[in-house]
């Protein structure tokens, strides 16, 4: 049954499913990075989410929502390394921080998480929309979620997930300014950014959990 809001334990359950979705998507994510980078993005995300699952499972029942998110972020940051360890770690940590004090996770929380997350990433990495990075999925998802705070959570989550996909699609036409792909120039064209693809997997899995 679609969930209109989540308890902290449900958030944890959701993030465990997010982790499984990323782990399952490893070959696709690595393949995307092979086209533009060094081919290890899926492996890094898999490593980060495997560590994240362990960390999430250790959390006591009722751990505050912000801590649930930031625990995942910390686990990713310290297990992954690489660009995406810092980027996705910051995403969940900064996004989580915005939810301090919140006892349920609803459409507004989603918007708050996505906005603070992408802002944290932009501050950390300096990339902006159009640079062919994960930001190209993060930013439209955050914008869409901000427009959708009046909608029920399942619809808001779906809208955000769709926006992330559109962002990833848009990244195909961009020339990279960050990361290993930045020296490819026009050689980038036609390939989506691997980190943006990870964001679509993450938001897709959140939507699936919320809608199920």
């Amino acid at each position, binding site marked *: 049954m679609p969930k209109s809001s989540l308890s902290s334990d449900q958030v944890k359950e959701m993030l465990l499913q997010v982790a499984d979705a990323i782990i399952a998507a490893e070959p696709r994510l*690595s393949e995307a990075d*092979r086209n533009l*980078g*060094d*081919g*290890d993005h899926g*492996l*890094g995300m898999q*490593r980060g989410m495997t560590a994240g699952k362990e960390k999430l499972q250790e959390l006591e029942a009722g751990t505050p929502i912000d801590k649930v998110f930031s625990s995942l972020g910390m686990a990713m*940051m*310290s*297990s*992954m*390394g*690489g*660009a*995406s*360890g*810092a*980027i996705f770690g910051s995403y969940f940590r900064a996004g989580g921080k915005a939810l301090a004090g919140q006892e349920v996770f609803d459409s507004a929380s989603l918007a708050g998480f996505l906005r603070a997350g992408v802002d944290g990433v932009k501050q*950390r*990495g300096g990339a902006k929309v159009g640079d062919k990075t994960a930001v190209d999925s993060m930013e439209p998802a955050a914008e869409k979620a901000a427009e959708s705070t009046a909608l029920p959570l399942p619809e808001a989550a779906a809208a955000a997930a769709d926006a992330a996909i559109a962002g990833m699609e848009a990244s195909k036409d961009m020339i990279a300014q*960050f*990361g*290993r792909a*930045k*020296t*490819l*120039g026009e*050689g980038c064209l036609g390939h989506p950014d691997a980190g943006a693809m990870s964001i679509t997997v993450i938001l897709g899995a959140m939507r699936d959990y919320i809608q199920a």
Partner: protein
Amino acid sequence: MSKNSAKKIINDPLKCADELFEGLVLAYDGKARKVGRRSIVMNELRPDAPALLVGGGAGHEPIYHGLVGPGMADGAAIGDIFAAPPPDIVLEATEAVNRGKGVLYLYGNYAGDVLNFDLGAELAEEEGITVKTVIINDDVCSAPPSEKSKRRGVAGLVPVVKLAGAAAQTVDTLEELARIAQKAVDHTRSVGVSTKPGSIPATGEPTFELADDVIGLGMGIHGEKGVGLIPMCTADELAPKILDLLFADDLELNAGDEIVFFVNSLGSTHMMELLILLRAARPILEAKGLKVHQTILDNIVTCQEMAGVSFSITKLDDELKRLWDLPCESVGYTKL
């Protein structure tokens, strides 16, 4: 255990970074030790001196973590295969090498390394440790001279770490150490080519494609694009192409200048080819009036399965030459 099509002698392809790290600690024969999760630090450190910390992803052995030793780096923070070390590993290494005089981070210019070393530096500053950073960006073909901050760090890191390591044995302040390391970077340029793709142990798949009849000119050490593809050619044809790119860059090289000339193999190119390339390159260097103070021929900056070579030139002024001539020892580079 994932499949590994590259026929490598390993165990679990997903554990390569941890296991090569354990092997590396043993390779130091008790002169360096494991610190924390995945850092390596010399046992004997010069007291009251600024520290030199290097680091980066694994899979390019012997760099960076094989460059720890007397006259080289004090320690290294080591990431997973092709992944910069996470901030907590940077922190554990920072704490272990610090002797109250601060720590210089010296690493190659890759997004992941910059992000993680910066995060590590923030954590270290919270612990009251002063950190300075010098980023190695010797790869001429990755961006024009006007956009140096976009240039990658490649094989030139070997002479740079050697010079900074010598400085770390002699100077007393972090500022001095950083100044010399930055000078070594400013005086170093590299151009590489690739003939065969690399692979990641976890997948065994080639990380890029390269037809049998072409060479990637200016390619990075993961196969990043450079100046373009050129037809497969002879050593005598290739050497001047590489040197022309080096000479065209903004490091002024004038008759009478003394240099370190480093011919690096990406790993699957054998020493015979390095020697034949050296034979082609030296007369060109001499024709330009350059004096080779030291030649290095070795596979020190590598990439799993990858074949290819790079030329690095480090111009020595009096200060750098004095530092160069100090002995050093490490798994990756040793000099009497």
